């Protein structure tokens, strides 16, 4: 192991006393500062939002009038109900599908499971906004491609699909959030001790009962964590409802927040809506921690074990294969085909006409529309810098919390995890309220702050798991050989954690590249990102959006290709 060898050679590099003092200072302050910065980034925007919710425009006095107005508004009641329904059903749907897909690729012998392992992630790389647009073109009741295909070729009426409904929103979100659950549970499923399942079967439990009473309970921490992330992000997403539901008078809370910030703007109302949603999220996190805290889930011991691969019957194997084809087909292939066909059409008449296919939309987006070039540059710049800062901050925080497990760490961990559970639009609102009167407004830096503040918990959690897998003995050996903290970090810990660091960086990069929730509130002239450019292009022509979406998919595919090289670390 290179790290160990390097650590041993450190004996020859005895630091001077001055260097030693500097390194001790660095060791003491750097991770601690990262934690403090994280706490500030997590709490200050939230506090700003809550404070702003207690104020009305033109007055500094604190009041609950914004909340009173919300409670009296039937539209808010309807929006809250719709949002709850969306959150619950998306969580159930993607939970079911995510666990099933993870189980199929990790615990069965279906052919091509290595390929499916990666293909299941493709929807994660497509922006939900583009996904919603694609499904609108596929299943719009009077002009959808699938609707017309079924009608013209098979005489079938698919207008009952009703994509412009709560059900339509749930369908699209289930497809796009399944990879979240999949990623959360695939590692634990792989690491599950097969002996426990064998014991259950020996004692007479069938497959379903073993899943229900052994496998799923053991997955509970990962599944609950994933479920909460899916619940809050799907319920807090505004870009899918804004395409599929808002035009049809179907309100949702995030769409109301977006509407409240827009003209005629009412920041107090937006902040009150955001605060109420945050209160629900905090309550959910507390309940999740209470539930998990009451039970024990350790299945990994010092004894060697291996997860069992289920030998499927032909019928079950065909059924699993069909599930995979269904998911990859509906989650990735069909939406991408729809987007490509729209991008190649000068006008959409509900049908693709190859005779009129053109690259004009690509030419317009890439050559004539100045914003595209800015947006591609801005998105890449912000995603690279953001992912780097997020990973650096998350790594130091994970390191600090791992090395000193006390009551402070126990309190800080949920606080530091909080931003990840807050929908982007609400977090963006907090940053906007906080920084609107500063020189940061309208610059790259306000967006970067929002990105780092919103996504550092993701890196902290991922890298925490990576650090947990490294034996503390390695670090202790280096230190006993005379290495300073920084040298140990640089030559032992970071090289060993490198696959995890790269995978986390790429995941954050991908998330930031398609980010829209907070960017939409914070961008200014010249700082538009690809997501913002898409929204602006959608105000001109969806064909242009489709062309830009294809460009975005190409960029994300590049990241996907890099990620697939690190897939082992990702799935672990």
């Amino acid at each position, binding site marked *: 192991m290179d790290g160990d060898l390097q650590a041993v050679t450190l004996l020859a590099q005895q630091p001077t006393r001055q260097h030693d003092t500097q390194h001790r200072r660095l060791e003491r302050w750097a991770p601690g500062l990262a934690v403090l910065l994280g706490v500030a980034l997590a709490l200050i925007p939230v506090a700003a939002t809550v404070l702003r919710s207690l104020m009305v425009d033109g007055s500094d006095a604190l009041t609950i009038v914004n909340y009173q107005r919300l409670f009296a508004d039937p539209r808010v009641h309807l929006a809250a109900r719709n949002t709850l329904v969306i959150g619950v059903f998306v969580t159930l749907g993607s939970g079911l599908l995510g666990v099933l897909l993870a189980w199929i690729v990790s615990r069965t012998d279906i052919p091509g499971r290595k390929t499916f392992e990666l293909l299941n992630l493709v929807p994660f790389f497509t922006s939900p906004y583009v996904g919603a647009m694609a499904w609108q073109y596929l299943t*719009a*009741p*009077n*002009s959808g491609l699938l609707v017309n295909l079924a009608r013209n070729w098979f005489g079938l009426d698919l207008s009952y699909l009703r994509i412009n409904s709560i059900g339509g929103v749930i369908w699209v979100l289930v497809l796009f959030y399944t990879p979240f659950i999949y990623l959360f549970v695939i590692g634990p499923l792989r690491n599950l001790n097969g002996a426990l399942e064998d014991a259950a079967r020996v004692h007479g439990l069938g497959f379903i009962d073993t899943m229900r009473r052994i496998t799923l309970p053991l997955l509970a921490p990962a599944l609950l964590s994933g479920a909460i992330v899916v619940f809050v992000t799907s319920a807090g997403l505004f870009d899918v409802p804004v395409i599929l539901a*808002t*035009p*049809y*008078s179907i309100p949702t809370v995030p769409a109301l927040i977006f*509407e409240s*910030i*827009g*003209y*005629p*703007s009412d920041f107090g109302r937006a902040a009150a809506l955001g605060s109420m949603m945050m209160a629900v999220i905090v309550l959910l996190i507390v309940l999740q921690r209470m539930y998990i805290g009451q039970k024990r889930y350790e299945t990994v011991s010092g004894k060697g074990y291996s997860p069992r691969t289920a030998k499927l019957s032909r019928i079950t194997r065909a059924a699993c294969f069909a599930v995979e084809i269904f998911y990859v087909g509906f989650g990735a292939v069909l939406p991408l085909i729809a987007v490509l066909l729209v991008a190649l059409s*000068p*006008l*959409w*008449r*509900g049908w693709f006409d190859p005779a*009129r296919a053109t690259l004009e939309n690509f030419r*317009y987006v890439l050559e*004539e*529309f*100045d*914003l595209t070039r800015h947006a591609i540059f801005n998105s890449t710049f912000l995603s690279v810098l953001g992912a780097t800062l997020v990973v650096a901050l998350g790594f130091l925080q994970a390191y600090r919390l791992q090395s000193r497990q006390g009551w402070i760490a126990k309190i800080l961990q949920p606080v530091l995890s909080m931003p990840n559970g807050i929908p982007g639009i609400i977090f963006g609102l907090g940053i*906007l309220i906080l920084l*609107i*009167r*500063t*020189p940061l*407004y*309208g610059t790259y830096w306000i967006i970067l702050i929002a990105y780092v503040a919103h996504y550092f918990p993701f890196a902290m959690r991922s890298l925490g798991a990576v650090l947990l897998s490294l034996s503390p003995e390695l670090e202790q050996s280096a230190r006993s050989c005379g290495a300073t903290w920084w040298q140990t970090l640089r030559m032992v810990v970071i090289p060993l954690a490198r696959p995890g660091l790269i995978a986390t960086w790429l995941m954050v990069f991908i998330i930031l590249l398609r980010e829209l929730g907070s960017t939409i509130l914070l961008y*200014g*002239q*010249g700082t538009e990102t690809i997501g913002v450019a898409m929204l*602006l292009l*959608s*105000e*001109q*022509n*969806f064909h242009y959006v489709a062309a830009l979406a294809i460009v975005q998919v190409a960029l994300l595919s590049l990241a996907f290709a890099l990620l697939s090289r690190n897939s082992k670390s990702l799935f672990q």
Partner: protein
Amino acid sequence: MKRMTMASLVIASIISAGTARAQAPALNGVNDAEKARVSALVTEAAKEGALTYWDTVLQPATKNALLPAFIEHYGLPKSFRIEFSEIAPSNMITRLEQEAKAGRATVDVAAVASPIWVAAQARAGALMKYDSPEYKNYSVVAEAGLVEVGSYAFNGAYVFVPLWDPDKVKVAGDSWKDVLGVLQEGRVSVGNGAASDATIMTYIGLKTAMGKDYVEALAAKKPVFIPKSETIASRVVAGEDTMAFMGMPTRAYQMNQKGANLKYLLPKEGVTLLPQNFFIMANASHPAASKLWFDFILSEKGQKIIVEKEAMISGRNGFVSPLPDYAPPISQLHLVHIDWNKMTPEDLQAARREWMAIFKQ
């Protein structure tokens, strides 16, 4: 001596010819004072090198046609840039209000059909005071209260009227009532009244011309609320909606050029004119370039490009529309008269609440 005089004359004539060649078209036929003013602005604008322009109607392709004409008109360097965004009205107003709160100005010049909001901004001192020489060419619309000399003009106007694909639906007659008769439930679109002033202004006009009952009958058809005129027209072309109740002839023109077949109606009871208010922000960071852009857009040359590309209705006195079918002269339109100057932002909000109650939006 004679030889020297001859040489001086030759040199002077070469210089003079050179000057004549270099003189920008904008300086032709104007008096010395105006020439000096424009020259000074051109020098400053060249130093500024760029300006930022946001518009809720003009598309980037139109900006791309306007920019070289603008550069040539004033003899600006070819490197002069315009940072342009076509942006939805509610988004634009939100951004401009946020910039005002932040004390920043990234936008120099903007255009949005929201006369009440723009007038409020002018009163609050958020718009630059600029006595453009072009105002004199807009005296008729200024008298009608659509332009406030020194604060804002309009770079074009439009109307929201019924728009449909004649292959899919037939409209017989020329009344709003005839349109109501052919609407199919759930397959008609209107604007997004929750966020768009232009939609609410059209609603006020429609109510004035046809009464509230008519609007309630429209609401009973369960329309879809679409925020942008391009999407409204696209949905008709795709066959998703059979009628855009608040369609824009501009978009019909642009889509028909791409092969669509859209028709629109100017109902006999009258239509509401929506002036695309055009103004410079008070703290514009490129003030000289902004003033030249303001003048150019309002000039005959600028208006011609805008009408040809966007089929908008020009407010310039005596302007001859190159697209009379889609952008008829204001004088030929039967307009519902509403004095926007007498309305306050609160009045507009009250109308918005009324709209939202009727349409259950």
